[in-house]
């Protein structure tokens, strides 16, 4: 009984926040579509779903996300082997560098790819600009880091002895991989692939900047329907489809992830140097470096180009509002806003994340308790699958009247971003907490430590590194968040991604140069945060 009360107590705050700032706005947005003039009318939604354009958009979303996932997995798995099971000079730096794309602001990625493959770009001759291939490459660029991290973390600590046992029984390296290693990695690969699919299917910034008018995914379509066409019904219909599809996806993957015997022996192994047999890993890592390096190099080069020469003019211009009044405030002002918002979003999402992680990672003593914990776990993962655009627009239409008139509150943007970052934070903290042997806590308790003291003695030493890492992730997510923020940020207080999007939307060479420079500044800031996180060496991001 006391255990249940403690569970409820810990879950209360996150549940309240999730209820007010997630469930309410999202359901408000959905209701907007389902109730027409105060009347429940699902027929309109059904009508939207039969439109040829809707079908085209859904189909494009599914196949581009599948293709992006496939590329990310095919490159990421061999690269994970090289980067986590082999050792070579510069490995740490390479691992850190390949992690950066994942937290790069989506808008920046879009700008970088356009700079690379646009008509004037170094790869412009390929005619890739505005093609579906460019979008798939952009999605893979983003997510290959997720695969490398998640699969690499699992691979790194994989006990080598079952593989050795198989080799001693006469299995060739390829047979060992197929019959022993792959089954052991399957949960990691499946969860990485599913989360990558999720990210691809709900990608907003990349598709919006690269897709132009030709290609639209469900996410960008919701945005266009909401902001440009004001067709809320259609937007709501698509949101419902997205929500259902993602819930189904999560359910399927949790089924796929289940293996006959989930216990995997963990150990740390001495990694050997790469040898000739590691050519798949070397090849994949090389391709990933090219995929990740080229757009970033093109971005940096572009930002340093002024007229026909080179210079820092674009960076100096960041203190202005751009040509032809592209912006209301200088870019530097937006940078300060971004940092301030990120600090707020970080502490919010950490506070919630710690509570949720404690709730979902404690061992359950009864079937009901386990079910409740599983339900909570899934609930707090939902922001991962719900369109940030839906969330942002939902905020606007539900939190605008008393008692919840928050439209002008400075905290609205950080709250939305904290919710977007929450799944990532929970997934960084929960495995660390779940990995603590409960008997350690029991030992502390039996020696006379109260619950707080037990937490300080047993949990905190394990938790502080993932906590710092979670802070880093939350900070980076907040810096790059675009979907929800684009609805919520006020014109006189925009964040960096919003400013960049405005700049590329306004004509003028100076504005475009400024967009590139601003992208570099934002990317550098985010990369620095991520490098600091990598120094902590938390094997996180591994357990969606």
């Amino acid at each position: 009984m006391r255990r249940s009360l403690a569970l409820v107590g810990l879950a209360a705050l996150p549940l309240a926040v999730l209820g007010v700032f997630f469930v309410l706005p999202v359901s408000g947005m959905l209701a907007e579509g389902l109730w027409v003039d105060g009347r429940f009318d699902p027929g309109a939604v059904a009508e939207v779903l039969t439109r040829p354009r809707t079908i085209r958009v859904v189909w494009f979303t599914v196949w581009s996300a599948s293709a992006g996932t496939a590329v990310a997995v095919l490159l990421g798995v061999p690269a994970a082997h090289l980067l986590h099971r082999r050792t070579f000079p510069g490995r740490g730096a390479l691992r850190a560098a390949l992690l950066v794309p994942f937290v790069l602001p989506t808008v920046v990625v879009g700008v970088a790819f356009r700079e690379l493959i646009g008509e004037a770009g170094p790869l412009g001759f390929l005619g890739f600009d505005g093609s579906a291939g460019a979008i798939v490459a952009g999605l893979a660029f983003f997510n290959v880091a997720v695969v490398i991290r998640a699969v690499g973390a699992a691979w790194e600590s994989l006990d080598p002895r079952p593989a050795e046992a198989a080799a001693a029984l006469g299995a060739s390296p390829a047979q060992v991989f197929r019959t022993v290693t792959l089954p052991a990695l399957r949960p990691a690969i499946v969860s990485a692939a599913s989360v990558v699919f999720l990210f691809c299917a709900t990608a907003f910034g990349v598709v919006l900047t690269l897709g132009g008018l030709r290609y639209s995914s469900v996410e960008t379509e919701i945005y266009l329907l909401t902001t440009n066409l004001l067709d809320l019904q259609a937007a709501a219909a698509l949101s419902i489809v997205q929500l259902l599809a993602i819930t189904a996806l999560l359910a399927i993957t949790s089924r796929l992830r289940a293996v006959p015997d989930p216990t995997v022996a963990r150990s740390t192994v001495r990694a050997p140097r790469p040898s000739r047999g590691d050519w798949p890993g070397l090849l994949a890592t090389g391709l990933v470096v090219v995929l990740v390096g080229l757009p970033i190099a093109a971005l940096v080069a572009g930002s340093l180009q002024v007229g026909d020469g080179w210079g820092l003019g674009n960076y100096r211009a960041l203190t202005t509002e751009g040509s032809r009044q592209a912006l209301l405030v200088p870019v530097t002002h937006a940078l300060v806003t971004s940092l301030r918002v990120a600090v707020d979003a970080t502490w919010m999402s950490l506070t919630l994340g710690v509570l949720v992680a404690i709730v979902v990672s404690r061992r359950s003593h009864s079937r009901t308790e386990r079910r409740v914990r599983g339900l909570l776990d899934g609930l707090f993962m939902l922001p991962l699958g719900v369109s940030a655009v839906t969330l942002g627009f939902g905020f606007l239409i539900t939190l605008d009247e008393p008692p919840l008139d928050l439209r002008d509150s400075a905290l609205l943007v950080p709250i939305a971003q904290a919710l977007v970052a929450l799944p990532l934070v929970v997934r960084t903290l929960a495995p660390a907490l779940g990995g603590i042997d409960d008997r350690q806590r029991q030992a502390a308790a039996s020696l006379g430590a109260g619950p707080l003291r037990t937490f300080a003695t047993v949990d905190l030493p394990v938790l502080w590194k993932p906590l710092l890492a979670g802070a880093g992730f939350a900070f980076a997510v907040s810096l790059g968040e675009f979907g929800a923020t684009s609805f919520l940020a006020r014109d006189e207080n925009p964040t960096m991604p919003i400013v960049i999007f405005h700049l590329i939307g306004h004509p003028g060479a100076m504005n475009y140069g400024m967009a590139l420079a601003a992208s570099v500044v934002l990317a550098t800031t985010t990369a620095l945060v991520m490098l600091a996180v990598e120094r902590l060496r938390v094997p996180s991001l591994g357990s969606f």
Partner: protein
Amino acid sequence: MLSLHDVSVSYDGTPAVVDASLDLADGQVLAVLGPSGSGKSTLLRAIAGLEPVASGRVAWDGTDLRGVPTHRRGFALMFQDGQLFGHLTVARNVGYALRLRRTPDAAARVRELLALVGLEGYEHRLPATLSGGERQRVALARSLAVQPRLLLLDEPLSALDAGLRERLATELRDILRAAGTTALMVTHDQDEAFTVADRLAVMRDGRIVQQGDIAAVWRGPVDAETALFLGYARVLEGDPAHVLLRAAGRSPGDDAVAVRRSALVVADAGALSGTVVSARVTPEQIRLIVAVDGVGELDAVARLDAHPAPGDRVAIAVDASRTAAIPAGPVRPGG
């Protein structure tokens, strides 16, 4: 026939095995005995091809195995904790190597092997549902499935509790004999080695310090440290050694003498006498420490119906078959 010639293995420059040489004839079972950290598991892994050999050579029937990958050596390796594939059933674990080779009639062979290790009817169980002893039997059956030319056993029984270990050791010997398997087993447990093997190699600090027929090694440890590791309680030299050997009816020489605890028995007709320092009752006998006149403190045993107490004077007889002469050398404490 397996032969090792001056094999050395090192981890990051630290030598783990130094100049190990040994021969193992077909059909024989060799136990490599050594304390933990002595390099015996590393030696086993080097033979299996899982660790690179820094120098020296590992050969089978005279053919150097350098560059031959593990899966082409035809050696099966059985791990301390079995390393069953958790995602496969017992039958699929045992039949793993058979499937790799597309052996016809694998199912019948699997049944036969499970019968050999006493696990009929376990085909469809998952490893997680088995007890420790059952898991090791499955691992053994899996290793034997393809009739390896050499079976390598890495502490096969040490993860089990004492009673089960003793029983399985006997079974293991019978199974290996029945299958006619050539096997090399590393262990730190003397009883296990004695039960299973015909030959013994003792390893210490990465070197093989002694090898030979198991009874011969037991009777004649090569130095004091080996004697202590093989279960001898004390090693005496100089005058105490002379006194003891005379009491045992042997002529004293320059050699040191290793004494098992059970070599000294409290008996009225004993040739030595001494004062009991401490006494501890065990289920089978009373274990004593006695300050023996002219020798010093020694371990001794007494029958359960004797009641020696600290301070008592007792007479002690020496059983010569439980002592061993070893070439004189520095005696280090411990073992």
